[in-house]
């Protein structure tokens, strides 16, 4: 691999930041959810890069667990979105503010 580790880390940082921007600026709950997936994936890239450069399989096993957690999170998160839409007829997170005092 002629590509240095720093390049993978930098790409991962950029992808993570794009995900952060999405979570902070978008108001559609499903798009916010997709931006969280983007952040999870950028961390996965870091783990795989370190695993590959250190010659250690642990990072890749951790990515498997992250994928399992992401799958569970997708099921629960989308169920919450459906339940919210059923009650309030919107997925705009500015209008979902009952828990805000």
């Amino acid at each position, binding site marked *: 691999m*002629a*590509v*240095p*580790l*720093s*390049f*993978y*880390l*930098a*790409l991962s*940082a*950029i*992808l993570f*930041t*794009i*995900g*952060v*921007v*999405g979570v*902070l*600026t*978008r*108001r*559609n709950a*499903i*798009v916010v*959810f*997709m931006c969280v*997936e*983007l952040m999870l994936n950028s961390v*996965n*890239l870091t783990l*795989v*890069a370190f*695993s*590959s*450069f250190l*010659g250690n*399989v*642990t990072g*890749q*096993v951790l990515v*498997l*667990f992250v*994928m*399992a*957690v*992401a*799958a*569970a999170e*997708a*099921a*629960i998160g*989308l*169920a919450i*979105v*459906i*339940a919210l839409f059923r009650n309030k007829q919107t*997925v*705009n997170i500015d209008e979902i503010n009952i828990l805000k005092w």
Partner: protein
Amino acid sequence: MNLELILFFGTAGAAVATALLTVLLRNPVMSAISLIANFFCLALLYLSLQAQLLAVLQIVVYTGAIMVLVIFVIMLLNLQREERLTERYDLKKIAGAVLAAGLVLEMLYVFFSEEMPLGMPETPAGSSIGSVEGIGAALFGTFLLPFEVTSLLLLAGIIGAVVLARRRS
């Protein structure tokens, strides 16, 4: 400029572009489709890092399961009324963009300012670390307990999703 570097920059550029499209596009379905393209770019990067099993799982689990679920929910909610999705530029957006720019600058500074201790020692080509055999041996050996706990987590996820999405009678 060798081939691997060209491949890396091509895939990385595509990944950043599709991630930006995911955030910037107004239509949630188009956002989801560009996110799928982003996942394919990441799978290519995993392949270049010799993580073959993860590259396949990235496509099967993320694109095949999670994103299909997301698109299914977008269609189910029938979000065609665009006025519900119009978003204005306001103070929160600018603050978010400024904070994110600070974050990425900090991270890039850390990555490029100091000498990485592991610049060169790396997995030799043809190594079996990322293969099904290598990951399976670690998963059912060292990581057996976390693996089993993951199945409990997925069971809890199934039950939670059914309870949440059930129509109250």
